[in-house]
């Protein structure tokens, strides 16, 4: 078994601020993902990475940067937080692109 750890659990930011979310997995999975979950909108893919130092844009990449520093970690940066923004950011990993995705518990973002 393994676990995905996301930090921080809660993040409160100011409008225009740059905010960084971190994800660590110990499954030894190759592929990692960042999703955004808004109430009533399901999960939307922001970025994914199929191996260390690889980055692929998802459907919602505008306004975000990502970094896969090593196999076990994947970071997401909100480049300029939008006022009244509220969402949950979910990190996931899978062995390969065709395999089951395992999700972390999420980071809850609130922008004042």
């Amino acid at each position: 078994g393994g676990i995905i750890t996301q930090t921080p659990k809660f993040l409160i930011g100011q409008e225009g601020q740059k905010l960084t979310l971190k994800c660590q997995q110990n499954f030894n999975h190759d592929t990692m993902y960042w999703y955004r979950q808004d109430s009533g909108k399901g999960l939307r893919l922001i970025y994914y990475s199929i191996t260390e130092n690889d980055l692929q844009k998802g459907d919602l990449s505008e306004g975000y940067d990502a970094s896969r520093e090593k196999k076990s970690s994947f970071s997401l940066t909100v480049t300029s937080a939008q006022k009244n923004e509220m969402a949950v950011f979910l990190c996931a990993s899978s062995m390969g692109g065709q395999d089951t995705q395992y999700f972390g518990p999420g980071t809850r973002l609130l922008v004042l």
Partner: protein
Amino acid sequence: QQQVRQSPQSLTVWEGETAILNCSYEDSTFNYFPWYQQFPGEGPALLISIRSVSDKKEDGRFTIFFNKREKKLSLHITDSQPGDSATYFCAARQQGTGSKLSFGKGAKLTVSP
């Protein structure tokens, strides 16, 4: 454009009843359909999945029925328990792209004792 649609958005059933959650999709190249279950404060977790070569997949009280011709599938939860109260996401993957799942908006199930 929403590639995967779910209905109803929310459903309440009594304990012991069968809950039915529906899903439809647009893209005929989708060939893998997982259902994820999410409890409040947690990330989604894979519950059950089906490939387009099958029309039914069963795992305990959870069954997926799949109709390729109509591009529809449904998740049946028999003998529903209060612990099944969660949000359920239908997802689909396009053949050949590998990494990208398209998710529906989710369906919130409440099982009343």
